[in-house]
């Protein structure tokens, strides 16, 4: 049963990576750049949860969902503000300038976090009623079920938004050809802002779910998960939404399986080596398409 237990743990961790990876991949889809501040929006999600938790009934489903919604909404607003203030003025600037700005915004959020929240790690409260389900030697916590369930629901909602709504059609149009979209009357600034908001909301949800499973939060907590989620997005095929979800799940499973083996000290090294091997055979990622570029 040990491998099955690790698989469930891996799915739970991978689901969180998937939520963060979706934000990276969505922004890349419409703007063709990596928003490195995204991992710090994930951190803000956890802190919004930390500060709103006392305002709702403790360990209740409705209270927990209210905190989750607050974190998603707060992060969506932050994401849209970052886009408006930091990235929009650089629209059309060389990619390197935008990349450096993204790193700058990331550092600003991390160290502002240390100023406002303090550098000392804090214990994240229990938001939902805690239960453990046992099946022989298999133990599944209610938080793990919650993480996987919420992630599935959010990914399904995201797919629905992208393929079944007018803003989704506009997002796909902007991702395909921004100038043509603009000249068809699509307000590309609004679509890009919405994309940032949506991606950041998912990161906020990821922050809450991560903090529920690893209940120690601090202003630098986003760095490692952010890096792994970024890798997951590339593994799945950057710009590809199902790919980001698949990449996140796969990375979480590989990492947990290695952590449960005798080689646990090298879990990150082994996990990343496996990813490199996959990318060697699938350079565009698991679900990415290889494209030729006219020069």
């Amino acid at each position: 049963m040990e491998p099955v237990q690790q698989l469930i743990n891996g799915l739970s961790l991978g689901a969180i990576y998937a939520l963060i990876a979706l934000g990276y991949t969505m922004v890349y889809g419409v703007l063709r750049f990596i928003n490195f501040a995204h991992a710090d929006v994930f951190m803000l999600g956890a802190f919004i949860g930390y500060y709103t938790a006392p305002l709702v009934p403790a360990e209740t489903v409705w209270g927990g969902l209210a905190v989750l919604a607050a974190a998603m909404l707060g992060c969506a607003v932050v994401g849209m503000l970052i886009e408006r203030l930091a990235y929009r003025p650089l629209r059309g600037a060389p990619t390197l300038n935008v990349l450096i700005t993204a790193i700058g915004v990331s550092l600003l959020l991390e160290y502002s976090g240390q100023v406002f929240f303090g550098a000392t790690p804090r214990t994240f409260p229990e938001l939902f009623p805690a239960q453990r389900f046992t099946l022989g030697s298999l133990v599944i916590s209610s938080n793990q079920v919650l993480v996987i369930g919420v992630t599935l629901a959010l990914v399904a909602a995201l797919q629905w938004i992208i393929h079944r709504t007018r803003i989704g059609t506009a997002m796909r149009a902007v991702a395909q050809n921004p100038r043509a979209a603009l000249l068809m009357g699509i307000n590309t600034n609004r679509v890009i802002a919405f994309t940032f908001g949506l991606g950041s909301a998912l990161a906020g949800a990821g922050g809450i779910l991560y903090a529920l499973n690893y209940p120690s939060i601090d202003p630098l907590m986003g760095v490692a998960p952010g890096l792994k989620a970024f890798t997951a997005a590339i593994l799945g095929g950057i710009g590809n939404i199902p790919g980001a979800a698949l990449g996140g799940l796969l990375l979480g499973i590989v990492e947990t399986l290695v952590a449960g083996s005798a080689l646990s000290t090298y879990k990150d090294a082994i996990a990343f080596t496996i990813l490199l091997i996959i990318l060697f055979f699938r350079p565009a990622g698991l679900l990415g398409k290889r494209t030729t570029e006219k020069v």
Partner: protein
Amino acid sequence: MTPLLEIANATIRFGGLSAVSAIDLAIGSGELVGLIGPNGAGKTTAFNLITGVYPPSEGRVCFGGRDLTGLPPYARARLGIARTFQNIRLFGSLSVFDNVRAACNLHRATSPLHALWRGKAFRDDEAAIATQVDALLEIFNLGRYRDTPAAALPYGEQRRLEIVRCLATRPKLLLLDEPAAGMNPAEKTELVALIQQIQRQFHLSILLVEHSMRVVMGVCQRIAVLDHGVKIAEGSPAEIQHNPAVIEAYLGEDHSENLAHH
């Protein structure tokens, strides 16, 4: 009577180079005007000026009596200016239906807030748009490709789809940028018929940039000629055909002889 589109003394400079220099052009309601000139004459730049991709360094562009200065491209599209591209710019992985539907979002009866609770008004609006899109696809014989990704269409049909997508924005002025590029003579004949059908059926003003004299002479009521960013002539197809400045700058003596047969 106020022209629908008026370009007054417009200049666009890139660095020290003038791509378009002090051009004047007016297009009346329901008029079909051609814009011709050699490569690099500034024709596409003129389109970019009208659609707001580039602001004028000097002069102004008015549409329906309104100065468009400072208005972004999407806002100009809402006023009724639509364009196609020299290199087809469809949303390749979106279906034919979604390509046209994306353009229909300009004229909706409901706001984005309605999308949240998806009430009857919203559902009716969605149904109305789907009906409009399907009707447009049928008119232009694209119905059979409804659910096909745009990138999978044959070249001629992609051109047609791009024009249909423009029409979905309900334009008053349609800018066609070299629609006959890459077409064989039979396809060009079809294109001429298509442009005439569009003008008849949708009562549009059309500004056509085209290298194919066969197309320009076949459909345009009036032609303006650009050379090195300057307008060197304007008049009826017959006048342009025999204008010495045009012949020298663009057509060449032999070409002029050929045109006499159109």
